[in-house]
């Protein structure tokens, strides 16, 4: 399948999910709202990328902003959804550390003409660890019964799939794939994973009122 087709399907799906999420937004609890903002940020980034491409401007700079923002949002989502007892303002610490990492990566490792693959890889790895931790917390919690009715459970599961795929994708791009053909294969696989995950997230947004919130 051509990358353009997958990319367009993904873009349309992103638009649809953002619309469904906006429709349900007032019903969302705090963590679900953060997850929605994460999706909406992805859409904004995708729109900007398309505008930049249309105007034939280098899109790499966008990812240097988008990736740290995405990283901060996914961390905050897990922080709120796992409900860790906060003795220190983690959210501020997360914001400062990730912004600093993003800046250092931009300044010294991957400047404006490079994509921020280091940050994407780090973000994916961190998200996988957080998703696994969240699922472990469910495993040891005796109170939960019908797990498939919990919106956060699905957000964690889809995050694991999405960021699992993303991690392999960026690791592959950084370490091995140097020619366009191999990169296209990787992008196709990554695109299909994204489509699958976003369909799932769309269903969770759609059926959110019937799901257990806590």
């Amino acid at each position: 399948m051509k990358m353009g087709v997958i990319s367009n399907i993904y873009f349309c799906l992103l638009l649809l999910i953002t619309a469904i999420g906006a429709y349900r937004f007032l019903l969302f609890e705090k963590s679900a709202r953060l997850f929605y903002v994460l999706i909406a940020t992805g859409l904004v980034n995708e729109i900007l990328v398309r505008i930049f491409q249309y105007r034939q401007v280098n899109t790499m700079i966008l990812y240097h902003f988008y990736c740290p923002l995405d990283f901060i949002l996914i961390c905050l989502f897990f922080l709120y959804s796992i409900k860790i007892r906060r003795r220190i303002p983690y959210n501020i610490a997360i914001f400062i550390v990730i912004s600093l990492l993003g800046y250092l990566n931009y300044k010294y490792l991957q400047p404006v003409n490079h994509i921020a693959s280091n940050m994407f890889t780090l973000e994916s790895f961190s998200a996988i660890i957080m998703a696994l931790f969240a699922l472990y917390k469910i495993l040891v919690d005796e109170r939960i019964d019908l797990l498939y009715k919990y919106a956060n459970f699905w957000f964690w599961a889809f995050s694991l799939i999405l960021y699992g795929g993303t991690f392999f994708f960026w690791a592959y791009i950084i370490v091995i794939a140097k020619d366009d053909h191999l990169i296209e294969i990787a992008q196709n696989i990554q695109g299909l994973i994204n489509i699958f995950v976003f369909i799932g997230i769309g269903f969770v947004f759609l059926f959110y009122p019937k799901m257990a919130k806590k």
Partner: protein
Amino acid sequence: MNPEYATTIFIAGTLIIILFAFTLVLFLIVHKKKQYHNLLEKQTMENNYQNQLLLSRLEVQEQSFRYFSEEIHDNIGQLLSIVKMQLYNIRNSSREKEIVDQATSSNDLLGKAIHDLRNISHTLNSGFIANAGLVDAVEKDLEYIRSAKGVDCNLVVKGEEYSIGNERELLVFRIIQEALGNAVKHAGPAHIEIGLNYGPGSLEVTVRDNGSGFKPGAQKDAGIGLINMQVRATMLKGELKVTSEPEKGTTIRLVILTNANNPEV
């Protein structure tokens, strides 16, 4: 590294992590369902055990009541009656005015004590309650409270009285008795009103006092009495509600369903 080999590793790695995520999700759903069912089963068993324990306690209490009732009636009551007869004889045989007066006074007091004891004996005896019926049994208990505790009480019966079966009447009576006991012991009321409302499909019982009241959940002693009442209400498949406010008295309301055609069922 050979690019083709690396691509295979990439595809395999991606597939493995997706498969892992799917397996994990499936495992968690099944495992949590099983875990939750086990938890529910454990809770049900614990609840059943607690209920059995409470039932046994109530049975033991009922046996003790019967024992005390028989002891009061057959032993203490008989002895006091003999003492009363002897006092009567002393009064009649004596010519000294002071002795006659004291014997008369003692005789009257003893008569009152025997009367109160008989009331206690009756209200403790399940057989008497079955024979007398709920209304008379409650009247007896109120008579004792009026006489021994000096609390003004009255019984208001609405509707035509019918039997709801000996066992159920005994349970209702014990709830009223517990409520009265709690009120007299803890609330110090000036007045207690008992209401028995015989409806076509239900019996509503209210025990209302104007005592000190309490903040629900604050009194540990009253808590045990309330638990006993709740257990009995559960045995009656009825609904028991306690409302109270400090300095505003307490109302206990019990509603049990009765079969309009056959109230004993």
